[in-house]
């Protein structure tokens, strides 16, 4: 049964509604409680930064939101869809249609050029932008035909951003997007994410343990030990250029 509709009270729609979410892994012979009961509402269009040390459960939650993993108990709704109810094929379709991923290690296909890496996603999306347009948005309009091995780390991550936004996803999930980059390059990538969020209105989640990045968010969620310890809204979003670390 769908929950009653408190979200209607607000003017902003809800992207994710998370209730009593737990996730338990079996690692060898020990049980790992990665998430121990999360309740969270993430409004549409916001840029949300999730902070927390290693092992706090933030990546696990991102994986569940992205349809890569399933909750053990509890509910995760994306708009009207309960993700926990989807089978493998439906989860794949969910990722294909709604989710853009950006990873710490870019995960580009080495045998495809920048343009082709983006096309990999636009070929299967329902209302994509042109790969060239997406690459221009991240400032790589001049490196269309370069292979990943011919690009710097920052450039590779920007190709990954272009690949993620080219399908015009409902939500952009970024797991340590600057983790492998120096600060200057990292800020350039964050600027791209900021632009996308502002211009396209894509709900954006950024996982990081770099506290500084929280300043560019609408909302900051802090994780510790499988639970949320704090959810706060920033009064003012800083521009990435103002950040330093």
């Amino acid at each position, binding site marked *: 049964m769908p929950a009653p509709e408190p979200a209607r009270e607000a003017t902003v729609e809800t992207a994710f509604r998370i209730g009593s979410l737990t996730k338990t892994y079996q690692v060898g012979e020990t049980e790992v409680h990665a998430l121990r009961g999360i309740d969270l509402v993430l409004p549409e269009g916001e840029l949300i930064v999730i902070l927390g040390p290693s092992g706090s459960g933030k*990546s696990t939650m991102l*994986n569940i939101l992205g349809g890569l993993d399933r909750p053990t108990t509890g509910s995760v709704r994306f708009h009207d869809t309960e993700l926990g109810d989807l089978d493998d094929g439906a989860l794949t379709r969910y990722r*294909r249609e709604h989710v853009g991923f950006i990873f710490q290690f870019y*995960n580009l296909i*080495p045998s495809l050029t920048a343009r082709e*890496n983006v096309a990999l996603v636009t070929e299967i*999306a329902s209302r994509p932008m042109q790969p060239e347009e997406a690459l221009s948005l991240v400032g790589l309009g001049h490196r269309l035909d370069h292979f990943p091995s011919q690009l710097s780390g920052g450039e590779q991550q920007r190709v990954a951003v272009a690949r993620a936004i080219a399908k015009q996803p409902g939500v952009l999930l970024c797991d340590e997007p600057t983790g492998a980059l120096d600060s200057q390059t990292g800020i350039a990538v964050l600027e791209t994410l900021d632009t996308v969020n502002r211009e396209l209105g894509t709900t954006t989640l950024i996982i990081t343990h770099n506290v500084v990045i929280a300043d560019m968010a609408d909302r900051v969620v802090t994780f510790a030990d499988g639970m949320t310890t704090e959810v706060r809204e920033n009064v003012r979003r800083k521009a990435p250029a103002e950040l330093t670390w």
Partner: protein
Amino acid sequence: MVAGRLLAPLDRKLLRDLWHVRGQIVAIALVIAAGIATMVMASGTLNSLTETRQAYYERNRFADIFAHARRAPAGIVDDIARIEGVSRVSARIVQELLVDMPAMDEPVRGRVISLPRDGDPRVNDFTLRTGREPREGYPDEVVVLQSFADAHGLEPGDTITANFMGTRRHFVMVGTALSPEFIYAIAPGSFVPDDRRFGVFWMNERVVEAASNLEGAVNDIVVQIRRDAAPDDIIRQIDTLLEPFGGTGAYARTDQPSHAFIEGELDQLSVLASIVPPVFLAVAAFLLNLVVGRLIDTEREQIGLLKAFGYGGLSVGWHYVKFVLAIGVVGVVIGMVAGIWLGHSVTRLYTGFFHFPFLHFRLDFGTAGIAVAASLTAAVLGAALSIRRAMVLAPAIAMRPPPPTSYRRGLLERAGISSLLGAAGRMVVRHVLRTPVRSALTSLGVAFSVALLISSLFFLDSIDRMLEIFFEDTQYQDLSVSFVERRGDDVANDLLHIAGVLAVDLHRSAPVRLTHGTRSERLALTGRDPQASLSRLLDADGDEIVLPGQGITLSNSLATSLDVEVGDILRVEVLEGRRPVIDTPVTLIVREYVGANAYMRRDALNRLLQEPPSANAADLAIDPGFQETIYAALTESPQVLGVDRRAATLERFRALIDDSMVTTILFYIGFASTIAVGVVYNSARISLAERGRELASMRVLGYHRHEVALILVGELALLVAAALPVGCVLGYFLARGMATEFASDLFRLPFIVYPSTFAFAAIIVIAASIGAALLVVRRVSRLDLISVLKTRE
């Protein structure tokens, strides 16, 4: 000491590594095993056959030289025994007879051999299997060739009715025997062994003497010579001695039909033992190169760590050599067991064709040892380059992640096909082109399996074509009849008077020696009528020819062995009657696949032999409704030496092929599939290992399992597709070589590969590849989407 303690955990790692890639190891071990098994089977069988034959020949004093005469005084034995180099001589009387077996429609050819009175050790002695020898004074007692007795279920005490030297007689079988002369028991003029249609009957000399009117005389001499003696020289001297007595030319063991057949079989086994195993070893070496190369790539950091701990390059190298040896040993063990089992099966198959008193498969330890050493060496050599890479890897470099896989714009873009392919297509093609040598070798491996199949399957096509040419395109007679003595042309009328005989073609054949320069062949020269309607001769293009009035016509194989062309002059020595000798030109060469034959017009041959128009054989067309009465009439006629039914020969030939070829071909299908599966499975696993991250990333991006699997399968499909035409071409040439290799004095194969054979080979390999690919595709669903995102390649 320290190393010993340190190596123990390394050995545990070794075992775990092996277990981790067990599927691939099994696939490689099976390829090695197929090579070992072929070699163990072929060399063991070869050895068993050779040694058994050798022992049998020695024990029964098998002759080195064979000679036949019309009628020679028994004392000729002493003259021959005095020839320098001759160690033992036996003289016998050999005759033909026609047996009337109740279970058979047509009369059965048989040969009678006399047993000498004295108890001297006989050359070509028989080995009594059941019963006893015929007693003196009991003229009806015979010992029968065991294969014939078995085929007809004859027991000692049974009676056999036969037409012997113009008289209908009843014999009593008192025993069965085997003889080194008839290990491969084949009727004269036939090329298919048929235990039911050819029997040998040993009788006391006095009985045969009396029946054939040869008292105090013999017509067959068998001679053993000393090991150091030159047979050609002795043959010439025997010919001189026998010439006044109607000698038809002595010949050496190599021309003895049974011996020649076994030789042919041994040749094929040694071809099998020398050609096939290296192919398997080459494929196994390549696969090990692939697998060990990948293992060393993934264990790069571990290698660095080991070196940082103080292991030397040699210890690391030895570690991987042990890994390879372990796979080799698994292959060797499976191969040995399979080879011994196969050897037993093949030997059992041989006992159906070759009648030895005993024949057991015995492992040839020498060859098996070589096979094992060769396999292990090939395995280590295959992996050597990769292992060397591990040995020289500097620890500091090893512990850093390898440089990213780099791709450049290349062939695909230059060819302008890049835009035609989707992203997935580009991934497939670029991955294949990125490692061109490995891709080419993978394709070549698959091509080998296609080629191996074609080179065995084509035998069926060629034999089919040979039978078609021999039994359908060139022969139309229902029966072939041979006469005891030469008959005047009026015999045609006699035959036509038998109810149901529709047409008769007469033939005259005479033993001759044809000589051209230093080359010489002994054979029966056939005189044919130009208007013969029941058989025909074809030229090289398959068109019918008419025998010219002059000169001699040769089959192409005979022309080759005599090294003559049309227009060359041949010396023809007739070996019977007045023994005329003429020099005559070769006027035509005809294309034949069975036997080595020479033809003349019958009237010309009659003139050459200085005899009136006459014949000693006839082809008959009959009304099938009268078959039985015709057989009865022929069997009762004292003039008839033998009757052959074309349909029966064809039937028997097909049965022989079913017995032997089908089993062989099943082996080859198994072998070829082993290679295809081994190559495709390993290549798929390596590809999956190399691209697991990419494929998992695609799954994360929203690609379905089947779409991702298609990238893996697409790459395999591309490699297999490239392999098929290459394999067909390789197979074609390999088959052509085998066809040439297969040619014997008895028959040659027309080389032909039907399109359906190419298709069948391709289908088997595609099916094996699909099977192997499916095993790997299952793993796509098990890709760990989460961990792949957390780790750097």
